[in-house]
């Protein structure tokens, strides 16, 4: 007697892909590394929103964080560049093909130390890119030196105290032109996922600074980027709920004080305020909130700033809608009569 077993239907997203198709290679980072959680959030967010992975380009610099693009979105092209210079590579690639969805992953050393200049100029240009900073305050791959985001007074495993103030990458991004700025914690699954999805829907430069503890070199007492420090000092700004464009918005009507932001692609970010009044469209207030929380020793997480109106660098360049990289010869080589007329001018 034979029985036919029907396998359960495979779970797919709205473009018909399974979650496994959003995964990458096996991670080589340490067990418990915050970066691995962030990779998981990337996989979920891109899967949930049904982003076409063939159209995503991943970029990174050098460091533990910059290895992680190999561990997600294996069906996407990836470019692991040189230390601190991911913004330049990403900028060039997006100029070449403006239809790509760019996802950059960098660390605090990569972004705030060696790459600070390129980071700031990318912010200034508002390049359409998701820029994730996996921030652990320490150089992992070279075995535990301070980075420029290490807090004043925080210590290394050796006990050495940092006597320089940190760069706050969110404050820098806010001040100089990024259009979506958020801070999160690798241990906060729900918040990070909502921020990641908002970033996918956003048109412009997203900077997400994710506190992502380094379990090997910076998870001890005296570190301000440890799991336990975050547990005690994280100050969550809002409760976030992301509703993608392909879901019916009218189904859930949230209660309480909720701000609804419509994203460029028709998705909605619903921001329910918690204790404090915070307007995420007010850049000045966001900077003020960061200053205040720093003074209190808190780590403020949530959506700090969201501007859906500001033109991107691509708008300013007034480029054609198609990727310039693959325009046919007829559109990139002017005619013989053009050359002849230029020659005539020079006679």
């Amino acid at each position, binding site marked *: 007697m034979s029985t036919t077993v029907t396998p359960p239907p495979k779970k797919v997203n709205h473009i018909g892909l399974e979650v496994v198709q959003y995964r990458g290679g096996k991670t080589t980072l340490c067990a418990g590394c915050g970066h691995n959680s962030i990779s998981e959030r990337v996989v979920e967010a891109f899967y949930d929103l049904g982003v*076409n*992975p*063939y*159209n*995503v*380009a991943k*970029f990174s610099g050098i460091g533990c964080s910059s290895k992680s*693009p*190999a561990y997600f979105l*294996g*069906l*996407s*092209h*990836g*470019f*692991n*560049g*040189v230390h601190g*210079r991911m*913004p*330049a*590579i*990403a*900028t*060039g*690639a*997006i*100029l*070449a*093909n403006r*239809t*790509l969805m760019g996802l950059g992953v960098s660390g605090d050393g990569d972004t705030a130390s060696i790459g600070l*200049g*390129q980071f700031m*100029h990318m912010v200034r240009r508002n390049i359409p890119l998701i820029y994730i900073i996996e921030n652990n305050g320490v150089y992992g791959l070279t075995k535990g030196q301070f980075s420029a985001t290490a807090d004043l007074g925080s210590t290394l495993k050796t006990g050495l105290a940092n006597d320089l103030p940190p760069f706050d990458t969110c404050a820098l991004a806010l001040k100089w032109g990024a259009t979506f700025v958020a801070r999160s914690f690798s241990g906060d699954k729900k918040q990070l996922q909502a921020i990641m999805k908002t970033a996918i829907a956003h048109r412009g430069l997203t900077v997400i600074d994710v506190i992502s503890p380094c379990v090997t070199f910076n998870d001890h007492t005296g570190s301000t980027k440890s799991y336990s420090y975050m547990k005690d000092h994280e100050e969550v700004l809002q409760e976030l709920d992301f509703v993608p464009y392909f879901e019916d918005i009218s189904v859930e009507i949230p209660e309480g004080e909720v701000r609804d932001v419509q994203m460029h692609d028709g998705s909605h970010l619903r921001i329910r305020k918690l204790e404090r009044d915070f307007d995420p469209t007010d850049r000045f207030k966001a900077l003020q909130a960061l200053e205040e929380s720093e003074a209190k020793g808190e780590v403020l997480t949530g959506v700090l700033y969201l501007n859906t109106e500001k033109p991107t660098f691509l708008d300013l*360049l*007034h*480029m*054609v*809608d198609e*990727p*310039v*990289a*693959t*325009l046919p*010869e007829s*559109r*990139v*080589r*002017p005619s*013989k009569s*053009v*050359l*002849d007329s*230029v*020659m005539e001018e*020079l*006679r």
Partner: protein
Amino acid sequence: MSTLEVSPAVSLPEQASHPVVNDFSIQVATVNGSGSQTANTVLMRSIFQMGIPVSGKNMFPSNIAGLPTWFTIRASKKGYIGRRKEVDILVAMNAETAREDVLKLNSGAAVIYDEPLKLNELRSDLHFFPVPFDKLVAPVCPEAKLRKLVRNMIYDGVVAQLLSIEMDEIYKALVKQFGKKKAKAAELNWGACKAGHDFAAKTFTTGVPYRVERMNATAGKIIIDGNAACALGCMFAGVTVVTWYPITPSSSLVESLIGYMRRFRHDPETGKATYAIVQAEDELASIGMALGGGWAGARSMTATAGPGISLMSEFIGLGYYAEIPVVVFDVERVGPSTGLPTRTQQGDVLTTALLSHGDTKHPMFFPCSPEECFSMTIEAFDFAEKFQTPVFVMTDLDLGMNNWMADGFPYPEKPIARGKVLDAADLDRLGGFARYKDVDGDGVGYRTLPGTNHPKGSYFTRGSGHNEKAQYTEREDDYINNMDRLAHKFEVMSKHIPEPLVTVAPNAKIGFVAFGTSDYAVRESCDQLREEYQIGASYLRLKGYPFTQHLLDFIAQHDRVYVVDQNRDAQLLGLMRLDFEPAVVAKLRSLRYYGGLPLDARTVTDEILRQEGK
């Protein structure tokens, strides 16, 4: 006391009964920022319009206004347009340098000078032509603040009168220079020019022993600087991503390109740009963006000079190892460090050939003229995509920033070649690909572009160790295989790099090897050696690197080969030492000049005579 001091007892040499026709050089000494560029360009152009081969070279300081600058115009009926050492006619407008400029002249030269400078007191063996510039400019330029700019035009009129340059041609050149929009400025300058001409005609009873006579050697030719010629090459090569950081002497390459692209590379229907041009924050970013663009399939480029090349070093290594096409223009200037930013040199050849850490080698193109700036630029873009690697177009300040007479550029015959790129249909057919596998035996793998809509389309690009499938590896065999393939690819390039131009002199024992702007001096020197010393010299002009078999054959055919370098350390010779066997190297001699001025033929000839013991 100056070593330039000459005895005042020397008297004026007897003037030749027949003036020298169409073979002289004029040097105009001014201060920069005084508007002399217009007067100099007009003067050069008017001689060009009369059909005489002419060149103009600007020797200027790294400064905006107030420092000495010299412009040399050479007219040569034989068509020599390299720099000439000797000055026949000096226009001395700069009080600061006038004394030294006059003392440097050869006996018999003519000096047109601002009367109050009293230069005639310095020497008695020169022809002096004092001109009261301030007195002449006042009536033709009522607005006092414009006089400083307009007074230079007076010397155009004086020179035109003394050399018999037709005033109609001066006027035509002036109108061309100012364009239709600035007709008023052109008229003002024309007034000054006429005042100079009239003054000279009335005042000077004896002329100069040089004159201009109409020829027909410039018909159909254009005047253009090498940077603008490279810019046109970029536009017609179909460049789509341009990134740059301003640096002398390369800035005007991209600035010219911006001008042309705005005019000719916007979609006629939408008005939108079919390109992106970005002024980056530094050279690290400009090369990074250009590589990002090349990786994503754009024809991308950046332009820089030596200091920028140094900064780009790390990224170029990534471009080499990850195999990304990009074209880099190096308009060389005098190094090391900041060096002499506004003087010319071939000082980056060795650095660039091996730029970056680890084992790296890069192809270079060596244009020597505006025509080649145009054609080789187009070739370089094809080459970069064909071989998936950074390609360097090496020019220098002399070629890039000076105005050159050139033939009109022919429209590119070959269609744009984009190299080995697989699209989704190819992947369907092939079932997949391995990014760094040498499928065709030429060392060049197939690539896909990000955005390829196919499950087998992606690969991971990295500057760390990788195998054929672009996977991370630290294995000894993977590393060696990959590096050997890259070496093989470089060898294959030598079959595709532009072939050198070889001129073999009959029975010549010696030969020259030179590249770029050394060409003008070397060609003229070959003539000097033959005509004045009965020495036959062959000549091979390199057009690119890697070296080709032609070079080895040329060396084999001669007893001694002089490798001409415009740098101190004989960099081209050094590169040949690295690539060639000792027996070949033993035949090589070095001929170097590195003073920052364009190389001149007499320097080459004298050095050959010295080394040949003649």
